[in-house]
């Protein structure tokens, strides 16, 4: 008799625990489902995403000149390189094997990349103008700006110096200036992003 009552109670308890488990799970699931919209709401909205690429007309940029455009809230440097600038960039190239791995780095580049891998057309250098150290905008776009020892850009905040391929040569910055995704729509129009 007592046994029967106990098993019934035991069965009742497991039924009750299962119910509580289900209820608690439902509450947890509901809370998680509700939390996601709050988080996703902070992700970029449709209008921000719609402006994630821009088209730039570079027909007016003479050889040796540079322009700065705003893309995704950041400056993008577009420099029409002179043959000398292209040559000096290529001179400091590291040696790479067929797969692209760096075999030798005679110029001692901190972030070794070949100049060819950083441009689509050698005379057009397109870089994100944000110093890879702590985010300042390096100087060197205007001809009156200091360009550092390597003819590229000079960051006034902590002294990072970039060469004519935008690679870091001196100073605290760890990486080369970023090359954004871009494509030439026409010879005179480049689409960035």
């Amino acid at each position, binding site marked *: 008799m007592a046994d029967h009552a106990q098993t019934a109670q035991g069965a009742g308890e497991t039924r*009750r625990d299962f*119910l509580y488990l289900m*209820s608690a799970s*439902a*509450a947890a699931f509901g809370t998680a*489902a509700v939390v996601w919209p709050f988080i996703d709401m902070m992700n970029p909205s*449709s*209008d921000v995403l*719609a*402006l994630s690429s821009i088209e730039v007309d570079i027909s007016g940029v003479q050889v040796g000149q540079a322009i700065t455009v705003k893309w995704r809230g950041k400056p993008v440097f577009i420099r029409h390189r002179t043959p000398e600038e292209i040559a000096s960039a290529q001179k400091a190239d590291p040696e790479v094997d067929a797969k692209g791995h760096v075999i030798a780095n005679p110029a001692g580049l901190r972030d070794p990349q070949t100049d060819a891998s950083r441009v689509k057309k050698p005379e057009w250098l397109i870089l994100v103008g944000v110093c890879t150290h702590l985010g300042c905008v390096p100087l060197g776009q205007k001809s009156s700006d200091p360009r550092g020892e390597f003819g590229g850009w000079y960051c006034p905040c902590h002294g990072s110096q970039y060469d004519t391929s935008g690679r870091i040569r001196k100073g605290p910055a760890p990486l080369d200036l970023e090359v954004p995704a871009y494509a030439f729509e026409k010879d005179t129009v480049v689409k960035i992003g």
Partner: protein
Amino acid sequence: MQKRSIALNGLAVLFGLTAVLFIAASPHEEVDIPREHWSFQGFFGKFDQAQLKRGFQVYKEVCSNCHSANLLYYRNLSQPGGPGFSEDEVKNIAASVQITDGPNDQGDMFDRPGKPSDAFKAPFANEQAARAANNGALPPDMSVLARSRAGKGFFNYAGADYIHAILTGYKDAPSGFKLQDGMNYNEYFRGHQIGMPPPLADGAVTFADGASNKLDDEAKDVAAFLTWAGEPSMEARKLTGLKAMLFLVVFTLLFYAAKRKIWAKIH
């Protein structure tokens, strides 16, 4: 004591009856806006994409000559829950208009073909230009127009009913009605005098899919389009609502069962 009880009970009943009759009273409308059936009505209603495309065409060819829709962007036309144009179609639609951009490096404004990220091109540069071109009346922006017009619809699709009614409500003024200069008689507009001349007529727009372009259908199509324009997230809202209600029903039942179980000891 009996008398007091009856008096009090009677008074309470009178209050209750007054309240109920008052709440149930409906405001007398000067005109009854005819209620149409819309595909997007109801808990499971959806937009008819073909209708939205036709409605957009009506907007583009007729309404956009006077009415702006500043909160709509060309990219909205390819978003889910809308007319369902493809990305390429949207690029073409946008490129077919010239958008003023600038200033350029010389400080001048210039025109360029539209992009999907542009807002719908406005017909007038500013409110004053719009008024000057329309006898001093300002054609209202259409972005949320369908949401701003009331009617008897509890779920607020009265906007679509209203727009359809206005567009089909132009009639000759009845004898004795004093119509002011430059105004048009409309059966459903408040006061019956509207500044807008009848914008639509049978055959005003030709639809590529050969759908009916009678006035009534053109009006329905553009009303549906404007309803979408006012709330592009409607379909997402109803779908999410279904999921939420289902979950909440399960949640409530579970907690009801848990409550009964826990309280069984007490009862």
